[in-house]
């Protein structure tokens, strides 16, 4: 297989990977189709989301042009800025829905925690770049600290979903860095022991409630369990072939809450059935596998860890959301990437793919 032939001249000029781009475009196209139906055939919604996707692809294209050395150079500064902004949020941030997440800059409101989703993988790559792998104990501690500081700051806001993403990004980086299996299992055991402490001291009431209703949604069918119950009904009633596009009753008659945002997967499955679901899961697998392959072709430690981590963040979004919507995982407010209506995380994810494209397309210039 000659990598120079992949995608031909245009792709090489644009520094894009054709298979990955096609995968992303197919998922996005399917997402817009579903959104048209789930959003009650509101064309404004579809156009808005289309523009956001366009912006996302533009960011990806832009970042793909930048040589990875710039990312490496900026990594510690981006990370540091992110931490400072998180601290600023704690002091002057806006409170919405009981959580302090937003920083109001007069013109735009944005969530500094969003930066950390990319800043943590970058910082991890930067930190381990020149260190021998698998990491030593002391280096390991450094990596854990890099992850733990933003994790705690975000979890305190509280924003469990983003904290989970940021924490996982660090964990993925550690794993890809070659963290020994013994330590991995030891940490897993430690985490298991920490859950009761986490439950008692860190988690907020509404988060505990979410976990409890996840374990048995029927206990609160009109309150917090309503989302899960209605979502399962939408999915289950779709059957193998689905009710057909624009024919979903749960989504069209408003029984499915958040049907065009966090729970759009259920609206999709109701209309497209198991066949549609299988197709989408396959597409996601293809995108992730292709991205991991690209990461493994990266020339050095920094680019490998960064590329691998952002790919696994994408996986995390896809898995947590589909698992949540189908009742396999607790309700954690993570959108389905490239599907759910809404912009913030979309930009982050496409930026991640931009970095990946850059790393992949610059791989020879770096090594030689």
């Amino acid at each position: 297989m000659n990598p120079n032939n992949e995608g031909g001249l245009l792709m090489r000029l644009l520094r894009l990977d054709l298979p990955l781009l096609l995968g992303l475009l197919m998922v996005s196209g399917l997402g817009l189709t579903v959104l048209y139906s789930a959003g009650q055939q509101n064309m404004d919604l579809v156009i808005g989301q289309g523009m956001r996707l366009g912006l996302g692809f533009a960011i990806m294209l832009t970042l793909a042009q930048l040589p990875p050395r710039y990312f490496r150079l900026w990594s510690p500064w981006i990370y540091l800025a992110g931490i400072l902004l998180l601290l600023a949020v704690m002091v002057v941030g806006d409170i919405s829905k009981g959580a302090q997440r937003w920083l109001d800059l007069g013109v735009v409101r944005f969530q500094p925690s969003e930066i950390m989703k990319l800043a943590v993988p970058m910082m991890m790559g930067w930190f381990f770049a020149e260190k021998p792998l698998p990491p030593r104990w002391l280096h390991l501690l450094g990596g854990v600290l890099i992850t733990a500081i933003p994790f705690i700051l975000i979890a305190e806001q509280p924003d469990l979903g983003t904290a989970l993403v940021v924490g996982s990004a660090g964990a993925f980086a550690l794993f890809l860095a070659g963290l020994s299996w013994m330590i991995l299992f030891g940490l897993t055991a430690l985490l298991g022991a920490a859950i009761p402490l986490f439950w008692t001291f860190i988690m907020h009431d509404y988060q505990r409630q979410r976990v409890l209703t996840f374990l048995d949604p029927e206990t609160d069918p009109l309150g917090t369990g309503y989302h899960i119950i209605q979502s399962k009904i939408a999915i289950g009633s779709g059957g193998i072939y689905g009710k057909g596009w624009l024919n979903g009753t749960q989504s069209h008659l408003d029984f499915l809450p958040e049907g065009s945002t966090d729970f759009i997967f259920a609206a999709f499955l109701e209309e497209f059935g198991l066949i549609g679901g299988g197709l989408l899961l396959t597409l996601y697998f293809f995108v992730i596998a292709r991205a991991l392959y690209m990461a493994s072709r990266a020339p050095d430690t920094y680019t490998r860890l960064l590329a691998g981590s952002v790919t696994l963040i994408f996986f995390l979004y896809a898995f947590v959301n589909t698992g949540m919507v189908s009742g396999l995982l607790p309700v954690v407010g993570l959108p389905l990437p490239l599907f759910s209506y809404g912009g913030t995380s979309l930009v982050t994810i496409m930026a991640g793919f931009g970095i990946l494209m850059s790393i992949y397309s610059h791989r020879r210039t770096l090594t030689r």
Partner: protein
Amino acid sequence: MFAKSPVAEPLAREKDNTAESELFFRRALVMVLLVFLALLAVGGRLVYLQVLNHERFTTLADGNRIRVQPLPPTRGFIFDRNGVLLAENLASYHLEVTREQVQDLDATLEELRQRIELTDADLERFHKMTRRTPGYIGVPLRFRLTDEEIARLAIDLHRFPGVEIKADLTRRYPLGPLGVHAIGYVGRIDEGEMRRIDPGQYSGSTHIGKVGVERSHEDLLRGRPGWQQVETNAEGRPLRVLSRTPPTPGQHIYLSIDIRLQAVAEKVLEGYNGAIVALDPRNGEILALASQPTYDPNPFVNGIDFASYRTLNTSKDKPLLNRALRGMYPPGSTIKPLMALTGLEYGVVNRHSGVACPGFYRLPGSSHRFRDWKRSGHGSVSMDRAIAQSCDVYFYDLALRLGIDRTYQFLDQFHIGRPTGVDLPGEKGGVLPSQAWKRKSYNQNWFAGDTLSAGIGQGYFLATPLQLAHSTAVIALRGLQFQPRILYASEDPGTRVKTLAEPQPLPSVQVRDPRFWETITAGMVHVIEGGTAHRIGIGAKYRIAGKTGTAQVFTLGQSQRYDAKRLAKHLLDHALFVAFAPVDDPRIAVAVIAENGGGGSSTAAPMARKVMDAWLLSKYDALPEPIPAPDAAAHESE
């Protein structure tokens, strides 16, 4: 912040990019596997939900979106025997408030009050109903909105969530009070009825027959509810109809009453509390069932206000009491023909036996005098004269010879003192006294004096006007007996096919010698022809058999005299009269009771004559104008 310089370690390794690249590749492979397994788990979950549990979730999804709505049937109309409309349904609009959807009820009511007229009675009724209704069910606030009010409300009704204008059918009684005690009325289903009724039959219905024919023929009138499946959204708003089973409308019914005769009966009784019942003896059809005073049933349909109800309910004249069925009166002398028949049947007298009447009767070994209404006495009287002149002494003697239990056994066949089984609700029984009855009711022995009182229809004896009319009808037909009934026919509103109600025969009264009937009928004819009611016989174009009666309201002391002029009206005797006519071909039997009317011959008998004239000679007054429909009135005024 993080030192870039290599950490000082004794066995510091060099970085080996090839080895690290291979390490990364292995780890990436592990992750690909993990990703595969994770997405496979989701896929497996989808199979579990969409294949294995598809049926269950389809049912749940349908349960979410499909609502079954009842379609209440249209209630049948009520007509008199000639097809005059007595009860109908009128399309009307009312304002309904669903409290659960209203944020500030008081403020909403206040704002509505500025747009339409809301009386205190409306609000009082509304608040009363809200206490008994769950918050998610709409409660009517104002009935019979005019077109103008609807227009005024419709402009900004969207500002009041939970407030809706609803179309419905309101029961209306166009003749108002006329015939109310027979027709009755419908009203909103109350809690007690809610427990009693079959909910399936009343799905979507708000009203039920409360009294009168509306209640007794509820099953015919109501019809059967239909259903429709509608698709609703999460807010419960119906979006489209999926399937529909139309309701079966109720039957129209025709009453045996002739409303013209009813009008005559109510008119002649005006000014008295009392009742007039007219039957066709040949089949038991009720031709008129008047009870005075009357009242307008229309306000009851959607809930009468408290003040008006209290006025009706606490009035001394008890307008709500259906005296024809539920008023219990001593039959007085009207019982005498039946007593005479009992005497003949048991052979204790024959029609020639005579009794000397000195104006009073004394039991052997007692000084107590039982008076005759005529202080001077009737002299020597036979059965015929005893009936015609209503001689009390004759019947004291007869009753004593019969004994109370034989009297009871024979008279019981006439449904005197027990329900006739008429198809009207709430019929009272009354009392046909016997030794066993007295022991059961008072735990006392029966005395000879009780027998004497019973012999002239006084004492414990109590009967309803309907029973008196019925027993008179039985005499008219020489023992043939039909259950009194008010249902004449029912009609399918779709096909207009009429089904006539069948006469319901009751066991006939058998006597040893059929000529006994002639004997007492002759006595009753002589009541009119030269007897106590001779004045009503004047100018009659047909022959009448009748019997006057006067029932004591209170017992005079031994030395007191009854002086009508000096007694308060409520202590005056009740005036009674029973009759049938024509004697040879009886077509009507009548019973009249005018409470505190004084004498049966002076007050009650002329009323009966007018009723019989109306029926037999078609002498009717013009009917009252139907009450105009409120909406029609509103249109006319525009």
